[in-house]
Structures are given as structure tokens and as C-alpha cells.
């Protein structure tokens, strides 16, 4: 048997979860999990436009397992979002209502986290169902050199060890 694992996006003051395991995540200028063109990122005349934070977390919704350890997140190492678009990531233990980022302080470029050097979200061990480990908080910036339109998708991987 194995754990049934979801990746959830949390929104609002209460952290309302939305299952994004196989869904799209859209960075935007609003706190919601809706994948639409509302509240888009805007190419600025100067500086950068910061997105609202995306709060993601591993959630065990069922299944049978003994323990989960070593939860981590990483990208493929190459930013394919296009010129002027940067994705940032950090690990945060306690949930806070997603806000529009105002700086990159505390974050690292998400593409520096690779399969050989992932972002650790929690060592564990974790048991039973429910949300596990730290939140993966991500935000995106759009600079003056960015092109218009929807960017290509990028490959975020969330991994864990399980017995």
C-alpha cells in the first residue's frame, strides 16, 4: 500500500485548500486558486511587478503507509519562463494569508533548487493523514524586459521518501 498524496494550494485567511496535484497554478495579482486571466501580472515601466504568494503544501489524503520523510521541492534548473520573469521560493512552517510580495528578501531563485540540491520542506518522520512539513511559498516577478502573454509552464517537483 502507499500514501495518497496531494499538493494543495491554500488561499484566504483560513487557508482554504484546493487540490493542485494535477491542476494548473497561475501566478497573478490576487489571492485565489482560479486559473484565469483575471488580475494578471503587469509588465512595469520600471522596477518589477510582484505576484501574490502561492502557498503550497503536501497533504496526505488517505492510503496506507508507515512513515513519510525527507519532503523536498525542486525545479529543473533552467528558467524557461522567459526573459524578465523570475520565480522565487522559500519554506515556511506556519500559514499566513497570501499577500502580494514586496521584496525578494528571504526567498531564493526557485531554479537554484534542483534534484541535486533541493529545497528541504521537512525531514519528518510524518504519519497519518493531513498536511505535512513546511509550506512551499512561491512568488513571481515580472520585469521591464518581459514579453507579454502567458509564460510557458515550468516543472516543479515535490518529492518524499516513504515506507
Amino acid at each position, binding site marked *: *500500500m*502507499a500514501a495518497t*498524496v496531494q*499538493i494543495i494550494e491554500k488561499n484566504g485567511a483560513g487557508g482554504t485548500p484546493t487540490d*493542485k*496535484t*494535477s*491542476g*494548473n*497554478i497561475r501566478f497573478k495579482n490576487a489571492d485565489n486558486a482560479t486559473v484565469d486571466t483575471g488580475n494578471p501580472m503587469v509588465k512595469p515601466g520600471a522596477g518589477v511587478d510582484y505576484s501574490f504568494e502561492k502557498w*503550497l503544501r503536501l497533504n496526505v489524503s488517505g492510503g496506507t503507509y508507515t512513515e513519510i*520523510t525527507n519532503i*523536498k521541492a*525542486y525545479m529543473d534548473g533552467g528558467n524557461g519562463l522567459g526573459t524578465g520573469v523570475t520565480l522565487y521560493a522559500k519554506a515556511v512552517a506556519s500559514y499566513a494569508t497570501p499577500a502580494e510580495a514586496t521584496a525578494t528578501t528571504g526567498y531564493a531563485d526557485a531554479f537554484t533548487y534542483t*534534484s*541535486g540540491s*533541493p529545497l528541504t520542506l521537512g525531514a519528518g518522520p510524518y504519519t497519518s493523514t493531513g498536511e505535512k512539513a513546511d509550506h512551499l511559498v512561491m512568488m513571481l516577478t515580472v520585469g521591464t524586459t518581459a514579453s507579454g502573454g502567458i509564460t510557458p*509552464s*515550468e*516543472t*516543479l*517537483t*515535490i*518529492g*518524499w*521518501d*516513504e*515506507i
Partner: protein
Amino acid sequence: MSVHEITTDAAGARHGTDGEITVSLLETSGRMFKRRAIKGVGTGQSEEVCWLVCELDGVRVYQQGRNIVVTRSDLNP
């Protein structure tokens, strides 16, 4: 995507299988676990991956399908 099953027999040996290939760890001092991942989170085209990992004295055997890697490295899908 198949998730491996790991069992322990009466002698303490661990056996991990994906239903086609079985990896057995006969030493009780080693460890065997599943290294799982969801790749492509947020793209709408995510994929679940499961590797079987068998470790003994710092040497790891990673198995997925017909592919087997023996290394001391900590590999991720």
C-alpha cells in the same frame, strides 16, 4: 505509475516489488524505501514517479521499471 510494495519476511529480509521486478535486501542492517515524487506540479500535466531505493553500507540501488542504478549518490526523480 505503479507504487512499489515493500514487505519483510520472517527472517527480516526486505523485498520491494513493482509487480514485475523484485529487489531483495537480505541484510537487516540496510534500509529499503520508496522515493516518490510528483513532477510537473501546477502545469496541469503532472506525473507521479516512484523509485525503489535499497541502501546497504552507503551504496544505493535505485530501481524503476527495467532501469537500475547502483551508486553512493542521493538521487531524486
